[in-house]
């Protein structure tokens, strides 16, 4: 699966897509879902919660193992993808679109500078 060039990436394999209203959509990468295998449980922060860049914000659990989710950018959670909570396998089938996890009202857009672009992330994971 190609790595979308329209967003930024963390070294912990989360992506951030800035939307036109200034909020950020967050998910995990194709590399991450492949490594995890079949995802069967996703635990996410609630709407209104504050999340901090590079701090733990939840868990994603596959048949094989449980993995911590780190937030790639700070802000306030404005939306949670209920479709993923109900059908966690969407993270496997469509990690960059339907499998998004949360939307955040970004508190400090300059944090984006500490994230990787698609090319750098591809080099990190050996996909580039």
């Amino acid at each position: 699966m190609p790595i979308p060039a329209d967003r930024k990436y963390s070294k912990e394999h989360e992506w951030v897509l800035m939307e036109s209203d200034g909020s950020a959509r967050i998910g995990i990468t194709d590399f991450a879902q492949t490594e995890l295998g079949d995802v069967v449980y996703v635990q996410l922060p609630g709407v209104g919660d504050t999340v901090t860049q590079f701090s733990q914000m939840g868990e994603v659990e596959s048949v094989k193992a449980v993995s911590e989710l780190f937030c790639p950018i700070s802000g306030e959670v404005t939306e949670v993808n209920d479709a993923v909570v109900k059908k966690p396998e969407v993270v496997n089938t469509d990690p960059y679109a339907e499998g998004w996890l949360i939307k955040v009202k970004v508190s400090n857009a300059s944090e984006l500078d500490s994230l990787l672009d698609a090319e750098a992330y591809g080099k990190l994971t050996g996909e580039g």
Partner: protein
Amino acid sequence: MVPFAGWEMPVQYPQGILAEARAVRNKSGIFDVSHMGRIFVEGADAQALLNWVHTGDIGLEMPLSRARYGLLCNEAGGIIDDCIIYRLSEQRYLLVANASNTPEVLTWVTRWRDERFPNVTLDDATNRIAMIALQGPDAVAVMATLSDFDPATTRQFRIVEATIQGKPALVGRTGYTGEDGVEIMPASADAAWLWGLLMEHGATPAGLGARDVLRLEAALPLHGNDISPETNPLEAGLERFLALDKGDFCGAVALRAIQANGPARQLVGFQTVEKGALPRAHSGIVVDGQRVGEVSSGGYSPTLDRNIGLGYVPAQSVSPGSRIQVDVRGNLIDAEVVRTPFYSRPR
């Protein structure tokens, strides 16, 4: 690939654990189980030796070609391993042990051979012959298509010397998935060819991950998780595999005493009320706010679409229908004790 008891084993193939498990439930799957120990036991004292070390009835009247599941117990009744013994001929048997226990099983059986049953040859053939488990509702028909294997004569828990397109293999109608199927033992040199042949005939390669999912759904114990030298067959719910009336055998005195007094704890099955974080081995089991035991195996069941598990609790403290909680990383998850197996194949 992961290291496993000195072998390199695939956890999953590209389809993934759940797709592999579904293929085995719906069609057929193949598992490379060559890591399991295959020990030929032969000689005038072979029957008496095996009847001494194994809890099942390995009597003289055990029919040729029959397979028997049971435990190897130490003198205290602790489980050294769970093994299938196949009777190949009058004085020749095959013992199949778990990979990580094969060295201990060999040492244990050799010790009793040397002490009490000298006229036995032990031949560890693990590296000489491979083992591929073909499992699922289509498995036996696929085997019959490819070989002279006849499901009408080689029924469940039997073994036969078959010929697959000119190549010989022992074929046991046994497995570890809760499905009908066979375990095929060709020469190691023929293993890759056989794997390809089975794939051509529709079998899905399945790894350790799917194997664990399937055996847990069928509530088949995993040595090292659900049973160990620190557990005995009575508390593990394996009493039906103890031939306690067959006369003296290793561990019999201890096992009869445990049976008379009742075991102190019991292995029970449970399923969580809602989906969520998975119960896994070593998660605490909580009843009325008290931690009373520990999960020995747990995970997601694709067949039931529920989270399930096995765990030890004090004897008679719960029964099917009882509510318990499982402590998963500090979160108490509601669960219900249920009868096992969680899954039985349609017959």
